[in-house]
């Protein structure tokens, strides 16, 4: 069927405005945004080049991926996702961001990172002594205070009537752990360590004396999310490229660059469980 040129032009303008790719000679532009809380180098200045390489790797006949921004602050990240002039079609975001904005931004989780090639994320409390119980009122070092709700509801939910823990921001969890073993006055009581940091702590000559206690559930890692069904025809090729990142030299380089050798389909049960914890007030 032939479509009048004028009609095509109008359709094209509308779809571009939504950031959605469509079949035409010139690949459509797909806005890509990254939000990584707790990592001070997750900025355009420091990480933009790496995300541009990821965007280049994902680009193909149907779509050209273009970086909209890299943020480590949830408010700034939200601004990116709400910018109608430079629409974001796909993002790599923390699970907390996904659950907090799932409905308002119309997010769909398409894939999950495998940082450290691990399936899921688990957090462990590390301190001078091991605790298997919720450490009521204690000071806990984390790089994730920007996502306190996630910490309190999902990572370390407090039992009913328990005195909440105090989350203390540390950009560097090693230094928080050193404060504990050095016996500094204002040292935290525990460090909330992700699995990669935990391995690093276990390997460190000074820090390996620390004890490991309470652990979180196995939680989702960072998620690749589609915004408001904007990916269109670019969705499947993108997912294939992400899933097969470790299958080619070029893909492996990108995987190393973004510290996730591949992306897998989100674990539905894990996501649902985290969602239920998140929904609890």
């Amino acid at each position, binding site marked *: 069927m032939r479509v009048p040129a004028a009609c095509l032009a109008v359709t094209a303008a509308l779809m571009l405005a939504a950031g959605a790719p469509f079949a035409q000679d010139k690949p459509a532009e797909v806005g890509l945004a990254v939000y990584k809380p707790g990592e001070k*180098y997750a900025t355009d200045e420091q990480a933009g080049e790496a995300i541009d390489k990821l965007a280049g790797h994902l680009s193909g006949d149907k779509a050209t991926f273009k970086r909209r921004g890299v943020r480590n602050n949830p408010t700034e990240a939200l601004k990116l996702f709400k910018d109608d002039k430079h629409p974001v079609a796909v993002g790599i975001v923390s699970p907390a961001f996904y659950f907090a904005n799932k409905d308002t931004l119309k997010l769909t989780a398409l894939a999950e990172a495998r940082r450290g090639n691990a399936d899921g994320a688990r957090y462990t409390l590390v301190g001078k002594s091991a605790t298997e119980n919720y450490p009521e009122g204690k000071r806990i070092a984390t790089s994730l205070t920007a996502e306190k709700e996630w910490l309190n509801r999902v990572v370390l939910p407090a039992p009913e009537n328990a005195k909440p823990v105090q989350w203390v921001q540390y950009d560097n969890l090693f230094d928080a752990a050193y404060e504990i073993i050095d016996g500094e006055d204002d040292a935290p009581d525990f460090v909330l360590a992700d699995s990669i940091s935990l391995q690093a702590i276990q390997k460190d000559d000074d820090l390996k004396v620390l004890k490991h206690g309470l652990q979180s559930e196995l939680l989702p890692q960072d998620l690749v999310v589609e915004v408001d069904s904007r990916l269109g025809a670019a969705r499947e090729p993108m997912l294939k490229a992400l899933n097969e990142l470790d299958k080619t030299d070029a893909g492996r380089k990108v995987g190393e660059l973004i510290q996730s050798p591949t992306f897998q389909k989100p674990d539905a049960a894990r996501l649902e469980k985290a969602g239920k914890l998140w929904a609890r007030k």
Partner: protein
Amino acid sequence: MGKEVNKAQWLGMSAFLALGLLFVSCRQVPNDTLNGGSGGEHVRYSRLVQEARDAFESSPRQVADVELAAARFGEALGIRTDEYATLWLAARACAWLGEYAGDKSVREAYVRRGLTWVNTALKVNPEGVEGQFYHGVLSGLLGDLDNSYGMDAVKQIEARMTLLIDRGTDIAHGGPQRVFGLLLLRAPGPPASIGSLRNARKQLEHAVEIAPQWPENQLYLAECEFAWARDKDKPEFATRARERLERHLLGADAPMPTGVGHEWDAWQANARKLLRDNS
């Protein structure tokens, strides 16, 4: 410009920036070496090496001098490639240029050439202190100029510098402690990398203990003290850093080591920037 202290026998560059960033690749730092032999032209080889050494030792040293040195070393290494001393001296010239010469592409070209030369030096003498040191420095510079080498560069620096520190070897005025300390200061902590303010301070204080007269040691310890003041909310460390910069780099009596020229200007500019950023 302040009064001079003892002539700098070793070059102590280490001002590469934040390595091991959040998104860094682990492309391997090149390990290529020269294939040349140990053939004739002894007189010409010796003359070229001497010219290169003289050019590098120009006082005060400027970029053109070191470029000439690198060129002469290059010619000499076209004749023979089995002399460890020539190889590491050549690599050192490239490391200097990797830090101070022109634009990024020029610096990267020198760094890559320096890596080839230092790899060859380590092939000739795998235990060589200078080879170990400048391999770490050049890896760091490459990682800084091309982030895709960042992760491997961090590994190389950590391995080389801890080896030298554990051996108790001094080179480049507390170079291993300074280079490793600066890496720990500027790199993020786990899970992204190995950075730690506490460990950085230990190394940089050690570098200052070893060579208090070397301005770079004072400069980076001051940077660490400013970071410590911010991170620990201890303003007395910022005061200490300001006094350190004044005494060792910016004051009228700040002692400039003999032979440094271009470097001294760069260090002073960095010291002023630190003061501005922490005012």
